[in-house]
């Protein structure tokens, strides 16, 4: 005669549900590993530094351009002042000429 107890116990064991997820057992994390996270962080730092340095490049380039135009504007302004002085001198010379004044 077959003993019933071991058969029942084995059957119950096979039908047993797996333990619930929060049973405190180890579960491997799905996603990025620690090394990957560290590599990402390093790359992000490098990218941030590159962005900051590139912004410096842009500000320099932009500053140089408008400084060039400002310098040229200043040159034109001074040139205008000199021309105005020349025109005034010519007017004076013509005025004295018309009055028959001294010929310089």
């Amino acid at each position: 005669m077959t003993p019933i107890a071991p058969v029942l116990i084995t059957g119950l064991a096979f039908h047993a549900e797996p333990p619930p997820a929060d049973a405190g057992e180890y579960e491997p994390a799905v996603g990025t590993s620690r090394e990957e996270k560290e590599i990402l962080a390093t790359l992000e730092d490098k990218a941030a530094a590159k962005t900051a340095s590139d912004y410096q490049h842009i500000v320099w380039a932009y500053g140089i351009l408008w400084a060039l135009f400002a310098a040229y504007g200043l040159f034109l302004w001074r040139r205008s002042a000199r021309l105005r002085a020349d025109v005034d001198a010519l007017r004076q010379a013509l005025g004295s000429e018309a009055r028959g004044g001294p010929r310089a």
Partner: protein
Amino acid sequence: MKRKSELVVPLLFLAAAPLVVYSVQRVFLHTPNERTMGTAFKIFFFHVPMGWLCMLMALISGIAAYVQLRRRSRTAGAVALAAAEIGFLGGLGVLLTGPIWGHATWGTPWTGDARQVTTALLWLVIAAYLLLRHFGQHASERLAAALAIFGAVNVPLIYYAVKLWKTTHPTTGVVAKLPPEMWATFWPGLSALLLVSFGLFAIRARQLVLASELDEAYVRLEDSRA
């Protein structure tokens, strides 16, 4: 009361002022970074307009110098010189911002690229023209005009340099392929630069004509005294 022509220059500067502010805030705050070049690509928004300005002014200077040679026109001579001065500024701008951009993206400021070399050549021709006009004797004006014409001939060479030779420089079709948000940044910046440049160009051309008329008046005065 001011003549209508005298109002043109203030109007040009007035129109440029809001565009300058708008384009600066668009470049720095609202334009996304380009995928491969990142932030450094933003130099494009003033490097390219400077290049176009340099080429446009070299063309104007060359054509005006040709007219000056043919008709001995004083106004054409003034226009050629004023355009060359603005072209010199544009060339200097493009030759300074290009290497800054190159340093950020290629890792080197100068690669000896065909477009870089032809642009540098144009700038040197303009510089030579300016030196001749400012320090040359009266007879050197014809040689100076020939130099300006040579500079204008160099312009198509700059444009086609990226098509004719293998280069690292971006091709000429970049502007046409810009996405809408970059397109909306590029055109106000270009318009602002052109408005300011044409304002300065008009002032300078008028100054040169006036200076030449003044010289003539002084000579006539001296003749009448003699």
